[in-house]
């Protein structure tokens, strides 16, 4: 599952926000914060693990979750690439607008 799909679900975004705010949380702590059943939340955690948006450390009987920001950086990169594609177009438009402004000045 890719980053975009993993992030497309509000509960999963919620979990990530909680992890970002707290640094790390145990699975039990995460379950407690939601009305949904632990198995349902566990499924979301699985998706986040597979998308590598979180990592887990085992401590005694506890599973401690940490946020992993790397895939979010990729996402940022894609959005910036898309912006750069448009920026290239618009820089071409900037040049044309200068020419058109000159034309209008000379005609007007």
């Amino acid at each position, binding site marked *: 599952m890719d980053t975009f*799909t993993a992030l497309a679900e509000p509960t999963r975004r919620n979990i990530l926000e909680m992890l970002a705010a707290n640094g790390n949380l145990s699975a039990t702590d995460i379950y407690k914060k939601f009305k949904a059943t632990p198995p349902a939340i566990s499924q979301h955690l699985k998706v986040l693990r597979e998308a590598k948006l979180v990592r887990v450390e085992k401590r005694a009987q506890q599973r401690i979750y940490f946020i992993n920001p790397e895939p979010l950086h990729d996402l940022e990169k894609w959005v910036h690439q898309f*912006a*750069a*594609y448009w*920026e290239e177009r618009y820089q071409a438009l900037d040049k044309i607008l200068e020419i058109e402004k000159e034309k*209008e000045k000379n005609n007007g």
Partner: protein
Amino acid sequence: MANKTIVTAEPGKQELFITREFDAPRELVFKAHTDPSIYSQWVGPHGMEMTIEKWEMSDGGSYRYTHERDGHKYAFFGVTHEVHAPERIIGTFEFDGLPERGHVILGATNFEQLPDGRSRVVHQSVFRSVADRDGMVQSGMERGVSDGYEKLDDLLAKETAATVNA
């Protein structure tokens, strides 16, 4: 470069926004979006020849154009729902090169006048699914437009660094 392109794509949504300011009045920027002889000069990627096959920029009109490079043609088409000079264009957009039809985008472009002869363009694209939108963003669009145009990636990376650090 004072004018920067800003793309806003919130996770889980079917829309994205592209915002850019120009050192020109909105009437002129609007004209650059509707006059085919001007539009064809800036909308195509570098090194691609643009041909406008159909261009009816009025309510209920339609358009179709192609980008061509090394014998490969990429066609884009759609209908214009509303063309209201100089403030708004609403229409559809589809790439005629996908394995299946149906991945159409609803686009709304607003042209705002700013002080000192400047203007702002806000383009909203609404996709049929979150996956459609994310696919478009992930491909950076340029891959859909020009397969095998690898050099563009390097160029974009540089441009991106410049944009991000600006």
